């Protein structure tokens, strides 16, 4: 393990350019959002998570898949892969888990070559959480507040310095680029990080009982909570848009002259159009759609992906919902009724 003075973080990240595009949490007005590194706006001491996860960098909101070039004699298909080499710093443990989950979706069975190209060129530099926000419940899902896997480097804020854990050979190579900025950590710093982890776990204001939910969810399909909460929904799709694990997308053709671009963009299972076919809608009621969102994450996904839950416990869906639909409240109802 290494130590990096906080003051040396920005110089270290700057040094990774131009080989890498460097992405980090930045102050933007009232918010903290991931963006292209601007050292003057770099957020290092924030509590909780950036408003949005870094999912966009691996699975963009809108992405061009390929172009059909229609020539007089033939039709050519030209695929577009993004192979930008990118380092993302400040990825919270919940978001590391979110990407680990998307790896299962997009890199298992049939490999999605667009996600694969981005993933293979992205290094994840995690940042442990010393304090939870109101909506955070990662400690209940064991996806945080300190990460155990799925990072290339992992930073822990010890006050004036970061303790830096190496998670991969690619991460180690980054440290070599900034070698003179790093010092060797001692057992004293490692002990301090352990204490911070225990302290952090005590800051959670939201918790759920995952074992109870897993045991109950199979039978809870007719729980009145679906109808009670669904009636509040204003169909904005926000819960899906901010979710680090939501995978669903639409595909559309955009025609311009002799070229047709096939694009994909995020879709939301909370919107009525999600299951709309030419002749009918297979999930017409909002209560069924709310139930689908929770079941997909806590029942169907674990069944399909060896127990892995499709929820990181970040609480962003609760934060963003203008109607006050709270995922932890729904999960507690599922567990207790």
């Amino acid at each position, binding site marked *: 393990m290494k130590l990096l003075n906080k003051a040396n973080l920005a110089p270290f990240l700057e040094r990774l350019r131009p080989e890498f595009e460097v992405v980090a949490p930045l102050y933007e007005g009232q918010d903290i959002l991931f963006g292209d590194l601007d050292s003057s706006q770099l957020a290092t001491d924030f509590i909780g998570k950036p408003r949005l996860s870094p999912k966009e960098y691996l699975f963009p909101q809108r992405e061009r898949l390929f172009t059909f070039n229609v020539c007089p004699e033939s039709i050519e298909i030209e*695929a577009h892969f993004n192979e930008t080499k990118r380092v993302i710093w400040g990825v919270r443990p919940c978001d590391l888990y979110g990407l680990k989950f998307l790896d299962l979706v*997009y890199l298992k*069975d049939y490999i*999605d070559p667009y996600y694969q190209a981005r993933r293979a060129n992205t290094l994840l530099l995690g940042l442990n959480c010393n304090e939870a926000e109101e909506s955070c419940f990662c400690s209940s899902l064991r996806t945080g507040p300190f990460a155990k896997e799925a990072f290339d480097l992992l930073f822990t804020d010890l006050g004036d310095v970061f303790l830096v854990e190496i998670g991969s050979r690619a991460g180690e190579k980054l440290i070599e680029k900034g070698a003179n900025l790093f010092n060797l950590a001692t057992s004293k710093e490692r002990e301090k990080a352990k204490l911070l982890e225990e302290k952090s776990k005590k800051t959670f204001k939201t918790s759920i009982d995952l074992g109870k939910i897993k045991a109950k969810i199979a039978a809870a399909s007719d729980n009145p909570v679906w109808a009670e909460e669904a009636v509040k929904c204003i169909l904005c799709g926000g819960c899906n848009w901010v979710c680090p694990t939501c995978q669903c*997308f639409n595909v559309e*053709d955009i025609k311009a002259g002799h070229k047709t671009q096939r694009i994909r963009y995020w*879709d939301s299972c909370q919107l009525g159009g999600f299951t709309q076919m030419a*002749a009918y809608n297979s999930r017409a009621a909002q209560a*069924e759609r709310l139930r*689908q969102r929770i079941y997909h994450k806590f029942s169907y996904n674990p069944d399909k992906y060896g127990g892995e839950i499709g929820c990181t416990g970040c609480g962003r869906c609760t934060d963003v919902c203008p109607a006050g639909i709270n995922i932890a409240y729904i999960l507690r109802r599922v567990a207790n009724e």
Partner: protein
Amino acid sequence: MNKNIYTPDLAIITKVCDEAAGIKTFTLEFQEPEIQKSFDYRPGQFVELTILGVGEAPISITSSPVNKGYLELSVAAVGKVTQALHLKKEGEVVGLRGPYGNGFPLNEVKGKNTLFVGGGIGLAPLRSLINQIFAQRGDFAKISILYGARNPALLCFMNDLERWTKIENSEVLLTVDVPDAKWKDNVGVVGSLLPKIDIDIENTVAFVCGPPIMIHFVILDLLRMGFGENKIITTMERRMECGLGKCGHCNIGKSYVCLDGPVFSFQQLRELGES
């Protein structure tokens, strides 16, 4: 890099045939002979059909694997892609990806009676299986085909239906909801044909395909007749974008209809918890 899972292969429309009112059957051949040769499928599987500039839609294959060298898709013009397909003529090019899905059980029903209950365009995937079974006639016992549509103009595959009636140890019964002046057969929903057949239910597997409301009532009829839940096989229609278990639209329970379906037994559907 491996082949891009989202990229279609180009195929030429070699024949367009008016099947019924608002329904056409398209015969397609892949442009690359090698792709055509290696394109192998099972009855009940589907392809993702691209109309360039319009989009993609999942369409079940109605030809049979015994028909070498081409594919047939029978399509009702009901949505954006299918309406655009209906404007296509012989010699024009479309895109195809697939085949996707699990397909019907075939070896599992060898030696048994098979009962097919189809409604409207729902006969299209069943036709693929029926022709496959007739190609291996000796492997199967009695074959009963019950087929209905809203009116006579909407009945598909009349040539096949006529041919199937002439095959030994098989029967074809037709019905329409609303007859015209020339109609001489049964009038009523397709389930009203079930009492007219004489089969040993214990040794029969039923295949049901059609609009959701028809499937619902036919399954209730079959259960009342004594069919076991795992002896009733049906297909699910769901919105799909990818066909590969990624886009999320067709998720029901732990299954993706595109990967684990579209063919399910009634027992499986009940376990999935949404039908």
